[in-house]
């Protein structure tokens, strides 16, 4: 039996998982929609792996992404890491000399600057989700096309329409306006891709020095229209890995491997009933929302409290 390491990246829109071997080669991977239920998404992935990688002994697990804590508790992961570090580690394992990482996901976008193989600076979008995957999805819906088709359609345009994309709400009305005055659909779609890029470079990339080689990853990197727009805006070659959507998961797996504490993985986890319950602590006027995590109706963890009062209530 070979040994393997499991890495999961549970994002707001999609859940990504990889199993790697000792040399960081991806043995198995899976990409599915989270659909607002991270626990269920992870179960589907584990079930998928169970049937395919029977000869592999998974000895450690790492999680990242916005549901990292929840899934970390569920799978008893030995590493629970933030997205920035996980993405950087994942990408560095494939492109050791990378200097800049663009990452655009479903609801957030990040810029990671790397010098000599270590992260030296990063930036994330703030409250606003304009210029992320969900922005493209909603605009594609409005135009009546699939989000997967945005890239190929955008490439056919010679004259992208300028769209004000500082804010999703304005972008939407501007987009309707441009369509009504007769701009071609492919030009509008190419304009959307340009808008995503200019939004990203102006908001997230504000004041940062972007040096090549540049690697672009996250779900939106699969969109060839956006990749082209990035190349136009930066004047540099943009590298998109075939596994660009899996880099976070890969990073989580590598981090759990480095951690060197073995935590054998049990595929029977799919048979266990996991349940979360929100509760409001009433011990002081903060009224913290506490999330209790139940495994087969036994509470295994709780979080969300600001002070020790909440601890006592649940443990």
């Amino acid at each position, binding site marked *: 039996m070979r040994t393997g390491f499991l890495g999961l990246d549970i994002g707001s829109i999609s859940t990504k998982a990889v199993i790697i071997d000792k040399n960081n080669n991806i043995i198995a991977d899976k990409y599915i929609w989270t659909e607002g239920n991270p626990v269920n998404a992870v179960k589907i992935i584990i079930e998928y792996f169970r049937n395919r990688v029977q000869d592999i002994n998974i000895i450690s697990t790492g999680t990242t992404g916005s549901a990292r804590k929840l899934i970390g508790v569920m799978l008893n992961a030995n590493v629970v890491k*933030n*997205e*920035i570090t996980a993405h950087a580690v994942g990408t560095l394992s494939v492109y050791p000399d990378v200097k800049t990482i663009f990452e655009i996901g479903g609801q957030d976008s990040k810029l990671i600057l790397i010098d000599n*193989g*270590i992260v*030296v600076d990063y930036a*994330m979008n703030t409250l606003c989700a304009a210029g992320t995957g969900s922005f493209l999805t909603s605009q594609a819906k409005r135009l009546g096309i699939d989000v997967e088709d945005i890239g190929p359609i955008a490439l056919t345009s010679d004259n992208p329409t300028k769209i004000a994309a500082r804010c999703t709400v304005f972008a939407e009305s501007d987009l309707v306006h441009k369509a009504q005055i007769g701009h071609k659909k492919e030009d509008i779609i190419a304009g959307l891709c340009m808008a995503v890029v200019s939004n990203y470079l102006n908001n997230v990339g504000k004041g940062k020095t972007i040096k090549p080689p540049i690697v672009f990853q996250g779900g939106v990197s699969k969109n060839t229209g956006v990749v082209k727009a990035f190349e136009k805006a930066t004047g540099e070659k943009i590298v998109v890995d075939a596994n660009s959507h899996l880099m976070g998961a890969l990073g989580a797996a590598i981090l759990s491997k480095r951690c060197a504490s073995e935590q054998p993985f049990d595929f029977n986890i799919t048979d266990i009933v996991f349940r979360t319950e929100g509760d409001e602590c009433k011990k002081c006027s903060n*009224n913290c929302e506490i999330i209790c995590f139940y495994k087969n109706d036994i509470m295994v963890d709780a979080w969300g409290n*600001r002070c020790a009062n909440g601890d006592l209530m649940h443990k």
Partner: protein
Amino acid sequence: MMVGIPRAMLYYRYKELWETFFSKLNIKIRISEETNKKILNDGINFSVDESCLPSKIYMGHVYSLIGKCDYILIPRVVNYGEGNSVCVKFNALYDIVRNTFGNIKILTYNIDMENGCFEKKGFLNMGKVLGKSYLDSIKAYKNAKQAQRTCNRRKADIQNKIMDRKDKLKILIVSHPYNIYDKLIGYPVIQYINKLGGTPVFTDSIDRRQSLAESKDLSKSLYWLYNKELIGSIKLVEDKIDGVILLTAFPCGPDSLVNELIMRKSKKIPTINIICDELQGEAGLQTRIESFMDIIIEKSEKYNCLKRDESDFAAGY
């Protein structure tokens, strides 16, 4: 007689001064509770939407004191002499509170040095309002001043000891004291830093006079005194710290300008800007601080490894 003090805004700067002054005059004080969600929500209800988070919190604290004391202390600060003004919020708080709550008794003093309103004069006047003699008031004020000085010096001494330690990762929190010590704004940030193995050090425990002098190197034309102290303090300690967190409450006007200045001018140390608002996205906060700490830890590890043995490092990483 009981004087209520809102635990917000300038309280964190003048804590010792106020507390000693009133106790020497035999006047009981009541300090509002630590900020909690109720105080925040009350504050939001009594403020205009565009107000900044700390001033909303301030209104919540004032509201929580109404009916529980005879006076509420609300100073009005305009400037500390020419070229040393402060955010207009400190100028306006007295009037905002008076116009919002109407029927409460406010104890106040003015600091407007350009127009001859000095702190001492204000305190003596407060003593008069509270029915104390001139002599008692001046004695209490002198004691209070001394207490504040001693306290500041003690804080600086403790922090200097921490800063001289080589075995800790020191993160300088550059922020106004009313952000740093607020239970809802700064406390979660400090907690995360501690949890992730860092040691927070604070700008308000660094000598103010020296900081102010130092700030002239970064900008000669900046006029907000509190922000000048902040940028000067970074310069003073930049060789002793590993990272800088600029903690801002949304939407602080002076900070938005000065943080940009800091980001552009001091490129030596890893710096991030964290903006807190009333919506409290804890997840975003956690991710940002965690990755920032990762950067610093990795950097210092690499640095230490390099120093230890170059070849060893190449094989082990």
